């Protein structure tokens, strides 16, 4: 992975935990809670430090990595008039929302599970500023600043000032570049405060290894800064350096994306424990073509080719890879997981299942060793594979590939599984063509 979205709540928590280091003497009254139900919210209100939940009017909204919540009518800030939402109202609203499927304007569908609740902050529209930063380019970061924040920022994009900051700029250079580019339409009396905030915002963004950070709007009243809405992605490859600073940060599954199946979860767990790489995504559990592909690049090439030659993706059941020299045991477990999924149901039209065991010419992975794991899984699932009618196509090269290919051929023959086996002299994806042509010949 690399850049991963975090919840608004976690983003604000990171601001609060690092506030004094970056933003003093400005103040950030961090009053936010993340809850999954109305009951949890009411319980939270009884804890010390959270009295404001009972004392102040509230705002509640889902905190699940999607934007445009206002436009989706998913921000509770009024019952009759803005700023009259009580704890009871918020709790009731959360319970209503979390019990039904929600469809966003974008078409994404899902069930709301996480909500952020904060005090209602009365302010006027012209106090809503915008600030964001991104790592998009290899040589510089981009800082976006505008005096016109709020829900209409995209419509007002021409008023946003973009500042390119070289990644190796010193603190003095950063300060100079940003201060020279503060949007002209920020009122004079706020300019210095905003400029200082912007400089420190960028340093905070940089030091905490954000890949993207947007606050829209940010409201500055006197010494107080209110971060009203926040979107953030972290560069998770920096996780090993940031453990203490990030704390217990969560990288949730984006809204609308199906949660991982238990099988995908099991492979992800095995992957986390292993020095090798094990990845599995089930695209269509009823699909007919299953792949067991070694290597990240090769796995893409096989998926591409199946879509090209099978006339679409409805037959493609899974996407994934094993690579980086997995042990025999890891390969066995990975294969068993795939075979288990593949053999649960017969094809409704009575066609064979196709198992593509593919891979490029390995650099250092011992092919015979990984194939031993695949063969062990065959031994366990042979009967089930025969029940659903499985044809196997193998293509692989690399260290010890001759032995690997010979072993897998012998094992399949012994177990009565139809198999075709090829080495590096055959084009990597040609087994996909063969599998599909054999289908046509059969039909």
């Amino acid at each position, binding site marked *: 992975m690399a850049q991963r979205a975090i919840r608004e709540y976690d983003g604000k928590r990171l601001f609060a935990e690092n506030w004094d280091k970056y933003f003093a003497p400005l103040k950030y009254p961090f009053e936010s809670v993340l809850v999954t139900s109305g009951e949890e919210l009411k319980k939270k209100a009884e804890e010390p430090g959270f009295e404001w939940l009972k004392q102040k009017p509230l705002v509640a909204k889902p905190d699940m990595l999607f934007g445009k919540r206002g436009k989706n009518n998913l921000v509770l800030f009024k019952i009759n008039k803005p700023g009259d939402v009580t704890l009871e109202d918020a709790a009731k609203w959360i319970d209503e929302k979390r019990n039904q499927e929600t469809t966003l304007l974008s078409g994404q569908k899902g069930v709301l599970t996480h909500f952020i609740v904060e005090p209602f902050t009365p302010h006027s529209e012209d106090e809503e500023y915008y600030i964001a930063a991104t790592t998009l380019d290899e040589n510089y970061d981009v800082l976006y600043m505008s005096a016109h924040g709020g829900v209409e920022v995209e419509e007002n994009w021409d008023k946003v000032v973009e500042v390119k900051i070289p990644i190796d700029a010193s603190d003095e250079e950063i300060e100079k570049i940003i201060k020279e580019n503060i949007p002209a339409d920020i009122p004079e009396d706020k300019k210095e405060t905003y400029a200082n905030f912007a400089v420190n915002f960028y340093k905070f963004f940089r030091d905490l*290894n954000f890949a993207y950070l947007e606050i829209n709007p940010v409201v500055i009243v006197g010494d107080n800064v209110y971060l009203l809405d926040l979107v953030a992605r972290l560069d998770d490859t920096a996780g090993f350096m940031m453990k203490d600073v990030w704390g217990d940060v969560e990288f949730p599954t984006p809204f609308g994306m199906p949660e991982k199946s238990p099988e995908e979860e099991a492979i992800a767990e095995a992957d986390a424990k292993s020095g090798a790489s094990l990845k599995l995504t089930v695209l269509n559990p009823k699909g007919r073509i299953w792949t067991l592909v070694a290597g*990240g*690049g090769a796995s*893409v090439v096989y998926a591409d080719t199946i*879509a*090209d030659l099978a006339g679409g993706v409805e037959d493609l059941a899974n996407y994934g890879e094993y690579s980086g020299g997995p042990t025999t045991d890891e390969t066995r477990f990975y294969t068993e997981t795939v075979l288990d999924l593949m053999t649960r149901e017969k094809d409704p039209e009575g066609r064979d299942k196709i198992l593509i065991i593919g891979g490029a010419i390995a650099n250092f992975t011992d092919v015979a060793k990984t194939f031993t794991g695949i063969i062990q899984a065959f031994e366990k699932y042979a009967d089930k594979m025969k029940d659903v009618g499985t044809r196997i196509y193998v293509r692989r*090269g690399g260290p010890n590939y001759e032995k690997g290919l010979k072993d897998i051929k012998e094992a399949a023959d012994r177990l009565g599984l139809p198999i075709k086996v090829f080495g590096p002299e055959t084009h*990597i994806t040609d087994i996909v063509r063969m599998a599909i042509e054999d289908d046509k010949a059969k039909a």
Partner: protein
Amino acid sequence: MGLFTRDTQAIFWNNNRSAIQRMLDYDYIIKREKPSVAAIVAPTSSNKFDKFFFGTEEVMIPIYRSTEEAAKAHPNADVLLNFASFRTAYDVTMDALRFPQFKTIMITAEGIPERLARIMNKTAKDKGVLIIGPATVGAITPGAFKVANIGGTIENIVKSKLHRPGSCGLVTRSGGLFNELSNIIALNADGIADGVAIGGDRFVGSVFIDHLLRMEKDPNVKYMLLLGEVGGREEYKVIEAVKNGQITKPVIGWCIGTIAEHFSSGVQFGHAGASANADEETAVAKNRAMKEAGIHVPDSFNDLPHVIKGVYEQLKGEGVIQDIEEPEVPPIPEDYAKALKAGKIRKPKNFICTISDDRGEEATYAGYPISSVATPDTGKTIGDVISLLWFKKVYPRWAVDFIETVIKTVADHGPAVSGAHNAKVTARAGKSVVESLVTGLLTIGPRFGGAIDGAAKYFKYAHDNNMSPKEFVNYMKKQGIPIPGIGHRIKSVRNPDKRVEGLKKFAAEHFPATPLLDYALEVEKLTTSKKDNLILNVDGTIGILMVDMWRALGYSEEEIDEFIESGTLNSFFILGRTIGFIGHVLDEKRLGMPMYRHPFDDILYDVQKAEEIK
């Protein structure tokens, strides 16, 4: 000019033995004069060099603790192969950038924090240093120099014609597919002249265009192949260069990841860098744009071989590409371990081991995994371990308990006995535990601790030969040897040795029979009638009961004699007493006693003047 020449030498950061050996194997088959690895940097290594094969011979490659030392000692090495982990790869690169001798730095780690990767890449670019990677298997200039594992095994390298220059310039993102493409190009054309896998991370130091522009200028490259991926805009820089005439040589292009079209979002296909943020970053859009710019683009990856063949044959027809004379490839001597595994070779063994085996998943004691006898829940004791490792048998509980009782019984006998004394004196001379211990152990022999052996030997001899106790006593008298195992300094019939009582009681309760002990007790009756302290002592009891134990376990008399002859009985004493000696040595260390000097008044000096012999 290709990326590397036949004189290019690298410093390899991290002693990745298999990758370095593959580089030297490559050097050997292309007949390089100097190995391509000049030195290794291994900050935690205490070795000064490591040995590698160069053909059938071995060469020494020096190891340094820092890049600085290595660079100073090998000023001609202009490539750094950074094989540090993602945690340290950044620091290693930044450190190396201090030394202007490095022109190329290759970084293999995947998942370096993006901000660090960007700083590293920019710093290098500012200094004019070419970065390959991160997250790559590297690059190769066939016939000149190959980075680490790229190309895979030597057999595959030769099959894919990576051992001599061809005419294609190859640039890929993926390292796994680099090999595959080399193979496809070898099967359908004449191999590659230069090749780079730029790496799969989001921010890599050099990109397609950097290498393609270099290859455009390289007269050995006649056409180029670019294998891109969904995500990013790098391919558009190439398209631009083709359009504006910076690239004039034929280019074959393909972006993998067309599958992503079919899925709305969320599924990550391929590398970290591979996810489309905009329509023009999709593989389909890039393939279309490449085609429109005049790049040779197949209809699908499966058709790529035909396109390569077409371009190659056209260039050959035009005379741009000439036939290549295939060089002779010296065979790489087969690796001993591999040949052995394949059953191709054999050799006589110098050592034999019949008691333990450390070759499997877990080391075993006489066939039993260590974990099955080690922890308390196994119910096994030191006695069980001894029965496995000394006798290769699983003894019954009573025998195991007896062995353990013996060990405990002989563990120590105070500081005054000669072994303990020696150990203490040595410890006080400032020697280590092991040195002090062995000085104690070295005193064990016929006089100190040897009575166990002797008792077993003589009592068994007498018993085997049906001597009556009286005949035995007379026999020993005639031999002029005090009966081993008989007699004690203070203990007597009236003041019996509690240790002996304990052993006798245990034997009476648990041994199936104790014929030799019964015999010895008859002998004791005779000896104690002469003198009160001529009792069967603890050494004697142990030696004799051991014989009874082995008899009850079904060993033949010959086997038991062999145990005695080989010093097995003494071994129980050595093992047990080691516990005591170590105690004394540690005691001395803690007490911090000074060096011991024996007082004059405890020595009888009787020194005569030496007589002169004429």
